[in-house]
């Protein structure tokens, strides 16, 4: 979801995978990403729409993803939960890293 958020209007399958790989430094399975996006979509946190046929991709359209208000809300809550739990632990987290 973070990747989708960051990419904004250019968020579609290929770019999302690329972004994840770049940010995390690990190779990412496109299949897993598709499934994750599908589940998010069913939970109402993300929505997708099929774009126009793209000439650069042999006429195949791109499916664009955007984060829904539900999703943003969930991200916010997760963020504050992380902050709350991680408070004061910076030293520990840093030293282990």
């Amino acid at each position, binding site marked *: 979801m973070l990747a989708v958020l960051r990419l904004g209007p250019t968020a*579609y*399958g*290929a770019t999302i*995978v*690329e972004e994840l790989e770049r940010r995390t430094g690990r190779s990412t*399975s*496109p*299949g*897993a990403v*598709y*499934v994750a996006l*599908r*589940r998010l979509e*069913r939970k109402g946190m993300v929505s997708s729409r*099929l774009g126009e046929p*793209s000439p*650069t*991709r*042999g006429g*195949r*359209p*791109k*499916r664009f993803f955007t984060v829904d208000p539900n999703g943003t809300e969930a991200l916010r809550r997760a963020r504050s939960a992380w902050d709350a739990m991680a408070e004061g632990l910076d030293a520990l987290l840093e030293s282990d890293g």
Partner: protein
Amino acid sequence: MKTPPRLATRLLTLALPRSRRADVMGDLGEMYESVQSRRGKTAASIWYWRQALAVPVWLWWEEGGTMLMLGMQEIRIAARSLLRRPGFVAVTVVTLAVAMGANTAIYSVVHGVLLAALPFPEADRLVTITHTTRDASWGEMPGATGLHELYAKANHSFAGLALFGSRAANLMAENRPERISVGLATPSLFRVLEQQPLLGRTFTEQEGWPGGADVVILAHALWTDLFGRDPDVVGESVRIDGRTRKIVGVMGPGFEIPNWHVDAWTPLQIDPHEAHFGGFNYQAIGRLRPGVTGEEARQDLQGLVPRIPDRLAFFTQVRLEEMGLRINVKPFLDTLVGPLRTTLWLLMATVGIVLLIACMNIANLVLARAEGRAREVAVRTALGASRPQLVLRFMAESALLAVAGGGLGILAAFAGLHGLLSLGARALPRADTIAINGPVLTFTGVMVLLVTLAFGAIPLARLRGGTAPSVLRGGMSAAVGTRNARGARHVLVASQVALALVLLTGSALMVRSLRALQHVDPGFVPANVLTFRVSLPTSDYPTAAEAADFHQRFLDRLNGMAGVEVAGAVTRMPLTGASGFNPLSVEGRAYAAGAIPPMVESRAVTPGFFRALDIPLLEGRMLERSDADQRSGAVLVSQAVGSLVFPGEDPLGHLVAHSTPNPHDGWSRIVGVVGDVHTASLTEESPGILYFAIHPGEGVQKAWLARSMSYAVRTSVPPMSLVPAIKETLRSMDPAVPLAEARLLDDITRSAQAQMRLMLALIGTAGSLGLLLAIVGLYGVISYLTAQRTREIGVRVALGAKGRAVRGMVIREGMLVTVAGLGGGLVAAWFLTRFMAGLIFEVNTRDPVTLVSVAVGLGAVSLLATWIPAARASRIDPVEALRSD
């Protein structure tokens, strides 16, 4: 744009879900380019292939999960919907349970007897060898000791050949005699069947020659009962028929030749130099070499037939040609169950038809519901329900019904199978493999699946017709009244009637056969006759005279017992099977060099036998004890011998001999003619029978007679009540001799009819079920269709139609359908009943009287089923009718 591997792309095109195909393939294409520019073409191709294999799996997994959840939801909805209509559910489930239960039960019999593999390694290579001749009355003869060695040594097709047979014998166990069944087998049998003993060893080749050691191999059950599974039993001895035999081995619990239950095995000793050709008494079994077919083996052995005269005196070249001896090689399974094949598949077809009729009934019901729900479907479609969703909805309902019906059906099948077994299925060959097991349950599962698909498909097919807007607008009757719906219904009901006709015709044929069978005169009067068997061991009664003497003394004591009217003995009771087939020679009558004399059966008897069974003496006199002192023995012949051998003449006074006339064997004089009896079964002709006295003349060599005799005792009191006294008498004469198989002659006669009764019960039940279902179906459909025409009828009445006209209209519709069904059914019965030919007796499968009566009967019942809704229709109040919709 650099293109990814084409094959992988094709795979993706096929494997991806349609909704994601385009965008996912586009994404993967982009990523491929990116990987290629970073890591090179090879790495990119590998990456792409991995994705081609993995991504569809991911997506379908996700999809499946969703579908599963949706499915569960649909099932819940379907269940709720069904529960609101308990009547429909009850009728459907019960109907399905009965039909599927019957099918499962019969299939378990079919599977166990016909389809399950025999319990031997590579059992499909086991074959039996039989012999037939040009003269069909010889029948199919099993193996002969005289031919075994020739076949075994000179064949190219078999990995092994063996002979086996069985006989009853006395076993001395703890000084108490017990009757057991002893198998005789050439030592090769165990190799042919590829069976190893549990303990010890099997027979050596030497033990198969005359003079070989007296050894025995125990079957597992006998070892358990007698020796308590003592592991050191090898080397111990037992006394069988007065001979002490050493136990050399014990077989495992799984060793059982289907239909040949034996308690112990002794070696069949064949003297290769002295062989009796006439002794076709043992089952010949062989294991084909790998790659050899039955036909090749048959030709191989057939090629050996010309060598028979070199070895056996009786069959000269000329005789062989005249006989046209032919070898037959069949799979062992065929020999065991072959004759039953037609019957069992016929039964399967019968219950299959019942299931078909039941399904048609339910189909009509489902159609009615589907039409009632046309509106619901239209609304849902208009609101965006996809095809798969609708399919799922209807399938869920039919699946629930089918599973419930199938589940109950399996329970019913257990009960039904139990009933079948006690009704006589237990007597079937391989009955011990009959069970409701994996393969049978798989069959039930397939039935459930087919039923689900069939019923689920009906509403879909039906509703594809009407478009949503028209259905929403037009109200129920508009959708229902379409020609297609009525037509489909009519066809269904007509088919039901046709099928019911076929079943009922089958039942009627069975009824007539049984009636005919019951009228067959067995040749004797079975009432109040007790029978049992007494067998004397060779060691204690080594000569025929001593054995005959014992039997005579025992009979004298029996005849003196209170409650006994008359007692007699014979080597084999009527209706227990044919025995002693041998050619009959007549003195003074030379048969042409190649001709085969007529074959007759033979028995040894005491005079009391005929009186005990009330078999009439037609000519001449009975055998008497004084006959024993004559040079020539005296014989009686059955009436059939007269017509077979002495057509147009009086048989009395002729001299005859059984099997090859030989200067050492004497001739016997025919002194009397007695009535015919049926020996093998009630349906086969009475054979010619020679009756010898148990005390044959001095000049007559009959060493095989009289050791084991069946007794017949006509009593003035209930026969079984005398058994204890008789046993005591026997014991007082010789405690080592057991009395076996005590039963009423009435029971023997009844069991001769048993198989036909069983078939009648089964087919009759199927017929009744079919009739019931078809009539209910007809009634239901006519009622329903008439109810749908309420409005129309109302209008007609309002316009002046009389009640009679309305009734006529409804009846006409119903009877048209019925007549169409009857017509189709008659045609079907005409062609199909020939499969019953093996079951029936003295009725023609195409007997016109039967066909017509059944058709008329069914038509009459159908008329009744139509009359009731018609009468209701004629009483419709036009005002009410026009008001309803």
